[in-house]
């Protein structure tokens, strides 16, 4: 079975309780489901855990689905809700933690996790984190296009948008990505210059703190 294409008769069999059909169906959709999760989940959340949550909901609620044609948009909604729920939990955790240590006034921006900061040195991860900051309407199609090259048509069907809109969003999303990265580089350069102004040359050379 070709990846990403959802066979309606397979969906109907899965709705009717055919577990083999459900297994096949999951195999054909899990990569794009994971990409939707990537687009919506908080950076700190483990993707595999969230994917398992979606798989569980698929197993539990598949038989409630009335229309096989609605399967893709239903599953996408399930994935988005799972990611958003995790986002709310993460926000609550962060808030309580920041209140506890009294840091909320000092650090208003939401920092990436420690792991991500370490991986940040990796160039491709830097691009990925920048892509995660795109507006959601652009983020989803841009990331889906990277998922073993889903076609514009397949992405359009999944997001329920015309192919021309998908094409335009991917094109604009990529330009916005270039602009975000260029801006980040400029800011990093400015920070370095600022640091050089503040710290005497001798201390910079010896690597010492000011």
């Amino acid at each position, binding site marked *: 079975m070709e990846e990403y294409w959802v066979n309606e008769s397979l969906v109907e069999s899965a709705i009717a309780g055919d577990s083999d059909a*459900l297994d096949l169906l999951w195999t054909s959709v899990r990569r794009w489901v*994971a990409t939707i999760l990537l687009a919506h989940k908080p950076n700190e959340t483990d993707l595999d855990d969230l994917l*398992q949550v979606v798989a569980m909901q698929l*197993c539990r609620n598949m038989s409630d689905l009335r229309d096989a044609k609605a399967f893709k948009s239903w599953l996408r909604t399930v994935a988005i809700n799972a990611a958003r729920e995790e986002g709310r939990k993460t926000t609550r955790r962060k808030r309580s933690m920041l209140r506890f240590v009294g840091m909320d006034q000092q650090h208003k921006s939401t920092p990436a996790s420690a792991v991500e900061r370490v991986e940040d040195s990796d160039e491709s991860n830097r691009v990925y984190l920048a892509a995660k900051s795109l507006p959601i309407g652009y983020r989803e199609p841009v990331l889906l296009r990277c998922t073993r090259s889903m076609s514009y048509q397949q992405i359009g069907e999944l997001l329920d948008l015309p192919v021309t809109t998908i094409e335009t969003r991917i094109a*604009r999303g990529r330009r916005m990505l*270039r602009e975000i990265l260029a801006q980040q580089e400029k800011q990093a350069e400015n920070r370095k210059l600022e640091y050089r102004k503040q710290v005497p040359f001798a201390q910079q050379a010896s690597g010492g703190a000011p």
Partner: protein
Amino acid sequence: MSTDHTNPNQSQEINQNEQASQPVVGLPGDERDVLISRVIDGVATSEDWKLFRAAAAHDASVWAELAETQQLNEMLSTAVDRQLAHVDEVHVSGGVVDDQPLRARLDIVSRWGGWAAAAAILFFWFFGNPVQITQSNNSSVTAGLIDTGMLLDQAQPDQAFNQYLDAGQRNGQVIGEMPEHIVIETRPMADGTIEVLYLRQVIERQIIDHAYREIFDESGNAVPVPIELSPNLDTRF
């Protein structure tokens, strides 16, 4: 090349975002972006290529933009592939989710209390009470302060924390502090130092005379259900 939108609502949404487009010599910003995207995605027609070459003849920066976008797209694809590396390991064999990794983590959480207490006891047995170690190590600095019952609002954070551990252990509320701290975040500072946010874990103990189990009704709402406690039964939560 057409970038028409068939759905008027979506078109409106797109047009609002179009304000960010930059005017580019030769081709309007959107058309140029779409053209570059088509070339990168390998779906450019011969007509698209003609347009692209004409634009590049007029403005050579189109080539640089193409190369840069292509490189970014490749890096993004690599990163997404890396993120999706374990996706194929999540199965729904026989209509049941194979959630071994998730269950393993939940098991760790459910066993946490017993494991943590055991670890604390072992830790004490091997290394002695960490609070006492801290106090004895800092005796030259803190001698007299804790023993004399220094007021908490006058104590340094570490001294106040040690007082809490000490008092908690005396009345049985505190079992001890876990030896490992959990790092939440590290943040490089401009001066070359590193700020580290971390959790300190204290194991406490409470005696209760009534308990509730949380169950979920058909709407997914949490409902507390009283648990009957009996000394003769191995009641688990």
